[in-house]
């Protein structure tokens, strides 16, 4: 399975990780070797096999509809990079094309 530069750009964008173009060749090689490892699954017939999401074959436990958490803003915002008036500040979010 060979990756194109465009594939790498796309994956990097989807994952929101900036990668310098000069790192592309070595990264491509590494990722391709992993995909080669993974390709071993291709030869196995899994048509009628039920996928396994969990080791457990159990049902989701349920919680009663009760408010159990109090305002802990001060504590929870201690690690925030930028706070103003209780809000998490980020560079402006632009929704519409100019």
């Amino acid at each position, binding site marked *: 399975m060979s990756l194109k530069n465009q594939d790498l750009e796309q994956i990097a964008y989807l994952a929101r990780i900036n990668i310098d173009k000069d790192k592309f060749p070595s990264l491509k090689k590494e990722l391709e070797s992993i995909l080669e490892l993974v390709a071993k699954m291709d030869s196995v017939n899994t048509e009628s096999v039920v996928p396994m999401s969990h080791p457990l074959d159990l*049902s*989701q436990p*349920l919680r009663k509809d009760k408010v159990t*958490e109090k305002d802990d803003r001060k504590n*929870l915002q201690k690690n925030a990079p930028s706070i103003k008036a209780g809000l998490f500040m980020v560079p402006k979010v632009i*929704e519409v094309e100019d």
Partner: protein
Amino acid sequence: MSEWETVIGLEVHVQLATKSKIFSGASTLFGSSPNTQACNIDLGMPGVLPVLNEKVLKMAIKFGLSINANINSPTQFARKNYFYPDLPKGYQISQLDNPIVEGGVLEITLKDGSKKKIRITRAHLEEDAGKSLHDDFEGLSGIDLNRAGTPLLEIVSEPDLSTPEEAVAYLKKIHSIIRYLEISDGNMAEGSMRCDANVSLRKRGSKELGTRTETKNVNSFKFVEKAIQHEIRRQIKILESGERVTQETRLYDSQLDETRPMRSKEYANDYRYFPEPDLLPVVLSEDFIKSVKDLMPELSEEKEKRFVKEYKLSDYDANVLSVDPNLSNFFEEVVVRSRNPKLAANWIMGELSAFLNKENLSILETKVDSINLGNLLSRIEDSTISGKIAKEIFEEMWNSKKSPDEIIEEKGLKQVTDSSEIEKVINQVLEQNQSQLEQYKSGKVKLFGFFVGQVMKASKGKANPEQVNKLLEERLKE
């Protein structure tokens, strides 16, 4: 007839009225100070895990049952991956395969009384994101995650809607159902019910669907109608000039009454769904579903049928009175007092509605309650007052909050039904109107109405009209 046919599908997000969030025990109350209702789970702190709120399942099942849909068991949650500052984990826990509700139909009623069945593709559970605030911060946005984790039910319709009017009727129906079932207050202005409209056009008669656009940010019934109308006009213009419609998401601007495209990269919408590994498949037993069914209130459609059957109301009246649970409760209370459903229906849809609309009030804010209105109508029923006088009394009741009997007493408005009393007035009138009497006797029968009017006037409207008619007729025969 236009050569273009409109195809509309609506995605409605309904905020479920639970006390706590779908995956955490933080409160869902509206309007609190920023980030005071966002616990560590809602913030997506390292190491946190979601735990499912039982109530959201019950609410979703209620909805599913009300539209005769399938309730899928087990139902499974999935991660929908994308980056946005109001989405703390960088993924939204939603549902893809095996949504809790699948299929189903609901019926809409249009202004001309015609009905249309609209199919529902699915309804699934997911968590809401937080809010971004853009004003007041230079070059920055402030993120409030209070809303993050509020439970949503996303209801997706098949593209069965054909006009903006149908779209609004569908929305109103959904609104009515969710309020009836008490699963949401459906307040579009506050955001507890949101609508995205998918609009496409195709040549009339064609079986293929055209390219559709998705319009977001429509927060009232009126705006949904306008936004769709705008989109249709915009797309027609494009298609008629030979161009193609771009598949994109657009935002509706209510001030300029136009839609504008949202910023996005080509492959930005690859959500890379996969089953949520932190939540196990949810098994919904027959008993669980039955327990939900047993607690469901009567639905507006059943109520409508009952009103026609029990109260012998017309289809139209029954529909109007059954749509809003508060209105239908009011109506039934009035019927209990007045014993005349038709009279009750007329007064509620007539006088009462007029007064409410004039002051922009909802039925819950009415200045004449169901007991007093019921009593007023029962006074018409027992002939204490005439219908005409009742209208005057109603106005007085509205403004003074007094009971009908109080006003009848105070103003001496009791209908005169005593024959001898009425005869006295008739005699007076005929005496005072000799020339008309002559004319009547010589054939001008139309003057009968004049005499009736004069008698009513002389009695200040209190004479019972039927009796006046009867006695006058007899008197004039002599």
